[in-house]
């Protein structure tokens, strides 16, 4: 017998579960993960005991998780809480299934960041290589400040304008208004955007994502088993990742080279052309990254991202690439990529009413970095 005895050739998402998003007092990260996984299992029509692989992210107490869910998986692990790890979590699940080692893998995310209150930026946040030595004495800290500086570079090089960031914030807020689960639904106009207070100039409050409590879980299985579950399967057609960690927090090229490599690989895996993509899910912790990602993945020419997002290109019912149709991290909730996976799956299942992308067959998830990632989901296995 070889190490791998029953290699599979496709993977599908057969269950997706989400919690409420907001201030969820009484739930820690583990509890939120359990809440999400129970919903995912119910969605898939399985018992928790049917799950034979458990990969947690952000919620690190996998022991308590397994005890409380009373499961006996054949693989248990937990990845760190940074949003860059979301793609890798799904990569591991896909690999475990394709190898034939596991049948039904749950990926589970729980985040109590609003009530537990870990801060992004400031003493104790180790974001930034050697930050305590070379950043903190000058008051430099936080991913938001890094994106502010990167935007300034982009504006300097290409003439990108803050109003173009505003167009992104407005588009995603419009989508959130169609999504009952979104935390922020009140529409915003450009004047509102420009009147919102600076956090790290030139970025404003409305350029920043929404820290909340919540959880997301997905259940994945081999494509040949997917039709045995309750829901219409959504296939993972490609998943690819390239690190640009070596370039530090402020890459010269906004992550372009890494994203180009990911883009090529994921589309070859999926056998999908850019023109086949019906909707995008872009990891939007801050508005400028949306522009960098659209350029890096070739949806517009390099330097043109600002102009590309004007005139509703990312808006449902208006633009070619409806993006973050749940409101994204900016307006649904900052679930570090996970609520974007959930939305991709739900769009491909269909039936989302006013926020449904008509006839959606292919949805692509895009994460700019520092672990640049893309996942292509589709209604068909090949």
């Amino acid at each position, binding site marked *: 017998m070889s190490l791998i005895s029953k290699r599979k050739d496709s993977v599908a998402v057969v269950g997706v579960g989400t919690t409420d998003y907001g201030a969820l007092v009484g739930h820690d990260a583990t509890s939120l993960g359990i809440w999400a996984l129970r919903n995912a299992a119910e969605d898939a029509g399985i018992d928790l005991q049917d799950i034979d692989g458990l990969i947690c992210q952000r919620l690190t107490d996998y022991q308590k998780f397994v005890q409380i869910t009373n499961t006996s998986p054949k693989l248990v692990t937990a990845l760190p809480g940074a949003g860059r790890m979301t793609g890798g979590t799904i990569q591991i699940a896909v690999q475990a299934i394709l190898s034939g080692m596991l049948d039904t893998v749950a990926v589970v995310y729980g985040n109590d960041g609003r009530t537990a209150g870990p801060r992004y930026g400031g003493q104790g946040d180790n974001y930034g290589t050697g930050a305590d030595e*070379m950043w903190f004495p*000058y*008051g430099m800290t936080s991913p938001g400040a890094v994106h502010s*500086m990167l935007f300034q570079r982009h504006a300097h090089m290409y003439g990108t304008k803050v109003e173009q960031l505003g167009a992104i914030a407005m588009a995603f807020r419009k989508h959130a208004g169609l999504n009952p689960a979104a935390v922020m639904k009140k529409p915003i106009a450009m004047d509102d955007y420009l009147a919102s207070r*600076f956090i*790290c*100039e030139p970025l404003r409050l409305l350029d920043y994502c929404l820290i909340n409590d919540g959880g997301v879980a997905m259940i994945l299985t081999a494509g040949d088993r997917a039709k045995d579950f309750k829901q219409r399967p959504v296939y993972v057609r490609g998943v690819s990742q390239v690190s640009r960690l070596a370039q530090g927090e*402020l890459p010269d090229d906004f992550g372009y080279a890494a994203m180009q490599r990911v883009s090529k690989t994921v589309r070859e895996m999926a056998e999908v052309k850019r023109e086949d993509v019906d909707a995008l899910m872009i990891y939007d912790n801050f508005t400028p990254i949306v522009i960098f990602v659209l350029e890096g993945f070739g949806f517009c020419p390099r330097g043109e991202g600002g102009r590309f997002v004007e005139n509703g290109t990312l808006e449902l019912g208006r633009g070619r690439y409806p993006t973050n149709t749940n409101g994204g991290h900016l307006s649904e909730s900052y679930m570090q990529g996970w609520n974007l996976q959930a939305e991709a799956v739900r769009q491909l299942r269909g039936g989302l009413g006013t926020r449904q992308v008509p006839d959606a067959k292919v949805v692509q998830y895009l994460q700019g970095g520092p672990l640049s990632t893309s996942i292509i989901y589709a209604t068909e296995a090949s």
Partner: protein
Amino acid sequence: MNEYIKPLPPIGEQSKPFWNATREGRLQLPRCDHCGTFHTYFEPWCSHCGKEGVHWEELSGRGRIWANCRFHKVYFPGFAPEMPYNVAMVELEEGPRIMTNIVGLPNGTLDEMPIGTEVEAVFERINDDVTLVKFRPVVT
């Protein structure tokens, strides 16, 4: 004299020569013995060629603003009295980039310190151990 309440850098064996030099009004960084890459971290390994071994080398202290931003939110209580404050990444003329504050501006706003502005190092003594490297626009 008011107590200094902003964050102070931890000074370790590896970084001590950096802070010893700033006390004397000099900017020096570790440079790879093999390929000549300047480092802005304090480890013996080169991120460019992968080899071990660095020596310290003095830089001119001149450069240009490579990126900038201005904090309006208090992340460190010590900065609260001077909100908002600017932070810049300066590209030194020898190539490496370091984080700093730009001083000597009339109002400290971003339009007074655009990307590309020529700057030079100024050394701000904090206490007996720490002297920070800040930059001011070069007056031509």
